[in-house]
């Protein structure tokens, strides 16, 4: 079991309130991702759940019990840190065994569980090494191993992949998702990378300046972002925003259209402009179109075979059913 409920939880450091009162429920077994730009309070929120920071007001409920006053050691939560936070003076075996030793388990049981976790994480050959002798990816696995052996109510991940290189990050992302499929334990994952959020989450919580901007499944957020912030944050490359006449035609203050929802042509289209920088990914090409009279640049995603050069005229046609409309306050119009 691992249902986590925040009831009007707020946090202030001195006079500055970093998290205004917020409510949030994370269901048992759910993979929830807190995402937002740096400084949005996502890590602080995670640390409030962990108990590493005290809430200024409100309650943290874990499985229905008020955990607000319970110290982190007793919340039955396991945490994986960005810096891995392994104990450098202990072998991998002792690192993974540490929470079990703290829980005063029997020697045989500890050994059994450590071996089991090591087998799952491909760490069996490294059990007698020190963290300093491991690569970044292996260290992250040890940190995960230390978390899973305790069979916690929920896992908390604080940007666990940001210290890894790109290739390793994709691999570990899959491993963590796989782990969640197998364990079905609640996981809360903090990241600033919206790709990680989209690919891993059951539920994404988008935060800005301590406020929850929107909660929903990845596709909900992608398809119907509640406001301009979420619309701009979710999706890569980010959504194009157009104001003025073109927006007014759709009865909105601002319209948003994703780069992948714009068709390109060299002869005709609703909008026209000049091709600026092109980014060729092979499968796709991103054109940054300038001088459209709509916005400084409009980004479009085209098939990798489409060949426009710098300076070529280009015509763009947004898919009318996929245009997002926002009012002057930046809120989504129905």
């Amino acid at each position, binding site marked *: 079991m691992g249902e986590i409920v925040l009831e009007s939880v707020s946090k202030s450091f001195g006079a500055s309130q970093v998290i205004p009162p917020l409510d949030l429920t994370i269901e048992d077994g759910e993979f929830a991702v807190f995402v937002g730009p740096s400084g949005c309070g996502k890590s602080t929120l995670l640390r409030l759940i962990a108990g590493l920071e005290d809430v200024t007001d409100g309650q943290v409920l874990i499985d229905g019990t008020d955990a607000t006053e319970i110290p982190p050691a007793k919340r039955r939560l396991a945490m994986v840190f960005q810096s891995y936070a392994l*104990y450098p003076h202990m072998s991998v075996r002792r690192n993974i065994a540490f929470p079990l030793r703290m829980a005063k388990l029997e020697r045989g049981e500890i050994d059994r569980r450590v071996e089991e976790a090591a087998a799952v994480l491909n760490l069996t050959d490294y059990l007698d090494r020190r963290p300093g002798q491991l690569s970044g990816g292996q260290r992250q696995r040890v940190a995960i191993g230390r978390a899973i052996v305790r069979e916690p109510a929920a896992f908390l991940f604080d940007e666990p992949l940001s210290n890894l290189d790109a290739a390793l990050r994709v691999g570990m992302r899959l491993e963590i998702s796989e782990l969640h499929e197998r364990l079905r334990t609640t996981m809360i994952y903090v990241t600033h990378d919206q790709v990680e959020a989209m690919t891993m989450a059951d539920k994404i919580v988008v935060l800005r300046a301590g406020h929850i901007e929107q909660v929903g499944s990845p596709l909900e957020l992608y398809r119907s972002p509640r406001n301009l912030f979420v619309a701009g944050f979710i999706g890569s490359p980010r959504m194009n925003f157009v104001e003025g006449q073109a927006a007014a035609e759709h009865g909105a203050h601002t319209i948003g259209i994703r780069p992948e929802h714009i068709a390109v042509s060299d002869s005709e289209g609703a909008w026209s402009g000049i091709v600026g920088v092109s980014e060729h990914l092979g499968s796709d090409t991103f054109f940054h179109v300038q001088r459209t009279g709509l916005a400084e640049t409009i980004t479009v995603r085209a098939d990798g075979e489409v060949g426009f050069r710098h300076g070529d005229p280009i015509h763009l046609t947004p898919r009318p059913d996929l245009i997002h409309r926002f009012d002057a306050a930046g809120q989504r119009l129905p």
Partner: protein
Amino acid sequence: MARAVSTRRKAIFTLAAWTVGLLISFPILWTLLTSFKTEAEAVASPPSVLLFDWTLENYRVVQERSDYWRHFWNSVIIAGGSTLLGILVAIPAAWSMAFVPGRRTKDILLWMLSTKMLPAIGVLYPISLLFVRFGLLDTRAGLVLVLMLINLPIIVWMLYTYFREIPGEILEAARMDGATLWKEVLYVLTPMAVPGIASTVLLNVILAWNEAFWTLNLTAAQAGPLTAFIASYSSPEGLFFAKLSAASVMAVAPILILGWFSQRQLVRGLTFGAVK
């Protein structure tokens, strides 16, 4: 061409380094030499450097006249005990200052250090009174206590500096792993800080071993460490230079040997945190 210049420079620097080194260690070397001379040769003018009758007589006399080993053990107990006690008090203090600093932490640290700027003589009277009142005069326990207190600011400061280098996330990880505060300090913080704790211990043993103001003023026959042992040979008549030298050599030899074998640890400890 550049190579030649650099070789000459190197030679000059080497020479300069040796000169400074010799200047600094000259008093100790001279003491060592004098300890092997007779009393007459020790005060001879001009002094003879190596061409004299080498003798171990002084060492024999010194050992006969005053009990070296008793003073030695007093020194060991006082230096070791005050350092150990200081470390036990300082670890929790440095932990709280490094990991849960308050608004006044910096002020407290500076205030603690400021007590080291106070001349010791300023508190001699009150401390002597306290010693008389509590029956601590001329006891090893009293000296352990007073030297611990005298060096505590330095111990706390050094440990604080080392602890600051330890990432707080590791301690938080221990907390998440179910460690109580006590276990967090015992199993995670202390083992990680061992190099820092070791150099703190070494430095404080040396400071306490060489401390002469309190050890001389608060002891008589019973608890006197090696500083008192040396002092007993510095008589106003000044006719016992050779014996004084022998006593000095016997007193500083243990700590010099300790320092020699641990110099790498000491240097590392003192420059810890200076370079990342």
